């Protein structure tokens, strides 16, 4: 925890803690941030954590997350906690949650799946079988979506 303290506190904004080690940049990518926005961002990677062994932390000055962003972060960092900071104090602390059924956020990896047909009024839907490792299956065709697929989909174009 000492290393964490070396990063200065933010006044107003968001601290995302307990990110799986090595995935902080994916989190920034999901949030659409690359540094060019001029926001103050602190990224701390691979610090010791009693829960995860090692973890990453992201602090962003002046930004609050939208619900869809929180849902996406949950899929790559299922243990993450999101702290909303107001005037240097934690105003609110939320633990992300991976819902048992994920609808609409991800695409099925199977090109022959009915959910990949542009004309059909159907939202892709996945049933989460386990969190660590993240395992989920398409509710329509049964094909598994791996953690790598999920990261790739959520961070594409970043």
């Amino acid at each position, binding site marked *: 925890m000492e290393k964490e303290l070396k990063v200065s506190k933010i006044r107003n904004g968001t601290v995302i803690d307990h990110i799986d080690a090595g995935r902080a940049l994916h989190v920034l990518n999901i949030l659409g941030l690359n540094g060019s926005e001029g926001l103050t961002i602190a990224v701390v990677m691979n610090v010791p954590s009693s829960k995860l062994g090692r973890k990453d932390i992201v602090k962003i000055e002046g930004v609050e997350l939208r619900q869809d962003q929180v849902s996406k972060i949950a899929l790559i960092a299922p243990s993450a906690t999101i702290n909303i900071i107001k005037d240097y104090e934690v105003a609110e602390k939320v633990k992300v949650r991976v819902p048992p059924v994920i609808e609409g956020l991800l695409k099925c990896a199977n090109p022959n799946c*009915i959910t990949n047909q542009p004309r059909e009024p*159907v939202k892709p839907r996945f049933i989460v079988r386990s969190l660590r490792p993240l395992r989920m299956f398409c509710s329509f065709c049964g094909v598994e979506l791996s953690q790598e697929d999920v990261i790739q989909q959520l961070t594409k174009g970043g």
Partner: protein
Amino acid sequence: MFADKDVLTITDFSREALERLFEETDVILNALTSGKKLDALNGYIMATAFFEPSTRTKMSFQTAMLRLGGACVDLPPEEISSRAKGESLADTIRMLDSYADVIVIRHRLEGAAKFAAEIAEHPVINGGDGTRDHPTQTMIDLYTIKRAHGSIDGLTVGVLGDLKYGRAARSFILGLSIFKPKKIYLISPPQLSCRPEVLHFLEEKGICYEEASTVTKVLPELDVLYVTRIQRERFPDPVEYEKVRGSYVVNELLLKSAKENLAVLHPLPRVDELAYSLDQTSHAWYFKQAYFGVPVRMALLKLILKG
């Protein structure tokens, strides 16, 4: 157990449900063989929507419905081609749902039957989708084994052929796991071996299985050999196909080492993977299996529509 239920994948059914289906099939078979006319589904209509060509499955469903006094409507080929011009599967299913009491669908796309079931108010039966599910074929296969051996438990079963893309084989393997077979041999060329998710499923269910690349060695152990076709199209290189096909032909010579009561099954149609010389032997259960297609589907339709 069945009333108003969709039939999408075989693993949606419990052992008890399948045993109930087999009991009902026995009753129907007895009635059929004694020439009794049945009319349990008089006044009911079944719609068939086959977006992929199929003669056997479609005719077998239609015969089953008619033999129970019900009626059939079929989505004509023109309608299927008009769909290619723009109508969605969703709209087609809504239309059929307004006409019929039950819908049977076959589709090239995976998950199409499940999607149809979510749209339709009436029960939907999957007549085969993509490379994954063919639950009614599996019900027929399991019923055939039960007739051949009295039980599915304790048997050693070989599944031969295209285990990767063949939906009948995949569905059959999953179906076996609902019972307690002694062992399943998964016999295929390496390029067409069983998908990891199916293997995981067997492991989770505690089913003993082994993958094999030839049938010769395991044959003497088998009580059931389920043969499926290896399609030429699965091989990018025709030379590769010619090399493997010979090793997956089941003929009398091969069966010399078989147990006396080995039952050979095949979902049909066959090409040359199953020699005609087997037809006269006691191993040939595939014609009976085809014959059971109608009574098993009769039992299923009756249980779904009448409970």
